[in-house]
């Protein structure tokens, strides 16, 4: 086990990067603490896999440092970093049996035979493939193969960390959920640092204690699922986490408020104070659909909007409203009823109305 630190890391796959667009990872500082269960969440092509391969040593970063327990490991190969990695698509040694596959990393580490046997048995039981141990790996189905791939990652006890690169892509949904729980159990049982790459927020939040959200080659927020939900540090986190994502509206400054079209949105006094010093013109406000209230009475704090659409999702409803020239989503209970075209009063509770400058959250100064 080790603490993994990435220090001003950047990586470009081109030999002579000419601009920020050539970088898969841009200037990134991050620490994965010892024994944590982490998820690395982001859309396809945001640099997640690159980051994972840099940690494991399959890819050499073009700039910056990778530190294991404070020691620079940039020059070390994956075998010397003693790290386990499970790939997106199953890689099994198909001339070997399942047992031999699982025993392979241990054999390479010169683990005594008796120890190998108990350990393989243990992992096979966890993954529920103990009845397949004598089968040739090539005769397995795709999800059995992926279990074997995962097993090879989990079988070593002394690893610095286990990295998972979207390991459940080829697994069918029901089993997916089970395996995710399994991984979590394994984590609790063995207390190994685990980093789990995924583009699925649900997968990330069921597996991980803390999630790093990656966007455009950068970690834009690192926090618990609740933190990501309640205080997205970046407009992308707001948009990516939650279903539907955060309502984000581009606004301009005006006297004592911000404005889009003819609608003026009142902000908290500290937000206005911070806004005054800001030179940027890229100002946005954001509020989650879950936090917008629809109230019966019109008041100074409400905004009048028109209902455009009501979607019934079974246990709740998503209401699309038009406020000025912007549409917003509002989450309402099953009981909510409004005809399309009718007027409603929206209330934006102050603690949930976020202000973003240059895409990053503007926070209250301590």
């Amino acid at each position, binding site marked *: 086990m080790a603490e993994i630190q990435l220090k001003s890391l950047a990586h470009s796959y081109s030999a002579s990067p000419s601009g920020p667009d050539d970088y898969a990872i841009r200037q990134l500082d991050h620490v994965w603490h010892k024994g944590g269960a982490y998820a690395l969440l982001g859309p396809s092509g945001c640099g997640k896999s690159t980051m994972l391969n840099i940690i494991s040593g399959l890819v050499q970063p073009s700039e910056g440092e990778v530190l294991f327990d404070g020691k620079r490991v940039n020059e070390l190969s*994956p*075998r010397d970093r003693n790290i386990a990695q499970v790939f997106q698509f199953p890689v099994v040694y198909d001339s*070997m049996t399942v047992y031999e596959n699982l025993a392979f990393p241990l054999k390479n580490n010169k683990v005594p035979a008796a120890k190998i046997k108990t350990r393989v048995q243990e992992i096979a039981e966890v993954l529920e493939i103990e009845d397949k141990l004598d089968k040739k790996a090539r005769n397995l189905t795709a999800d059995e193969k992926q279990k074997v791939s995962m097993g090879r*990652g989990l079988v070593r006890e002394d690893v610095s960390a286990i990295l998972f690169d979207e390991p459940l892509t080829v697994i069918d949904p029901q089993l997916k959920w089970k395996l995710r729980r399994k991984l979590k159990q394994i984590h609790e049982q063995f207390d190994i640092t685990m980093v789990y790459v995924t583009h699925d927020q649900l997968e990330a939040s069921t597996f991980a204690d803390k999630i790093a959200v990656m966007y455009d080659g950068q970690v834009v927020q690192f926090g618990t699922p609740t933190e990501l939900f309640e205080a997205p540090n970046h407009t992308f986190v707001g948009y990516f986490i939650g279903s539907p994502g955060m309502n984000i509206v581009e606004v301009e400054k005006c006297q004592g408020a911000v404005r889009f079209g003819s609608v003026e949105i009142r902000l908290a006094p500290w937000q206005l104070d911070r806004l005054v010093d800001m030179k940027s013109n890229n100002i946005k406000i954001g509020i989650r659909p879950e936090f917008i209230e629809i109230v019966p009475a019109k008041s100074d704090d409400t905004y009048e909007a028109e209902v455009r659409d009501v979607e019934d999702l079974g246990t709740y409803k998503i209401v699309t409203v038009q406020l000025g020239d912007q549409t917003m989503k509002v989450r309402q209970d099953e009981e909510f009823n409004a005809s399309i075209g009718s007027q409603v009063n929206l209330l934006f509770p102050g603690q949930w109305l976020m202000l973003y400058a240059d895409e990053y959250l503007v926070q209250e100064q301590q």
Partner: protein
Amino acid sequence: MDKIPDNRAWWLVLPVFLLVAFSALIPLMTVVNYSVQDIFGPGQAYYVGTEWFKEVLTDERLQASLIRQFAFSGAVLLIQIPLGIGVALMMPKSGIKGSLCLILVAIPLLIPWNVVGTIWQIFARGDIGLFGWAINEIGIDYNYTGDTVDAWLTVLLMDVWHWTPLVALLCYSGLRAIPEAFYQAAEIDRASKWAVFRYIQLPRLKSVLIIAVLLRFMDSFMIYIEPFVLTGGGPGSSTTFLSQTLTTMAIGQFDLGRAAAFSLIYFLIVLLISWLFFTAITHADKEK
């Protein structure tokens, strides 16, 4: 759909029938025809049954030649297959160096057989050939025209030089087809170089190795021109392999009956051994 019975449909089989007849049966039947008769001239043919076969099988000259042939093919496979794999493993994976290597390795394959024989006949000569001269110069007495062992080694070396590139190219293509993910997984699993070879590369080379083994076996088992040009089968008959014995019999002595019976046996041996190799390799790691 209703089936319409119409026996004219049998005509549709005709093209296949003709093709098989011309490609395999008719030419072969000529040999079969000669192998069971003693033919002196037009209208002077006598049916002799299996007599030629019995004679051929008990002929000591042929037996000796057959044993030599097996020894030669065995040596060819034992040297060329591992060597070919080794060369393929050492070749650069891609880029200009890879292409250059491919061309250099492939050159011997482009040289006609009799030219190969001629090259080595001169190259290995003790007086004017660079190779023969150099060997003698470092103090080893080497003379492929006089010494049986030297002649054998020279024929073998010539074949290795000529045909190992084929094995190497086949293996190279097989190695390039292995996805990078396997090497990455092996690196993560801390596999040694040997383990990578044994458990990733070798199993995935299996299909090309079947082709390589079969091709090299069949070709070496039928070798004719190269030793004929190099040593003429000598010294004595030490490098006279099966096809040379057969040619001497058929053309030199015009002993067509025996030659035909011998040809059939020759053909059956090649067929049998190829089948054995194929089944042995493909069944080697089937699940019990």
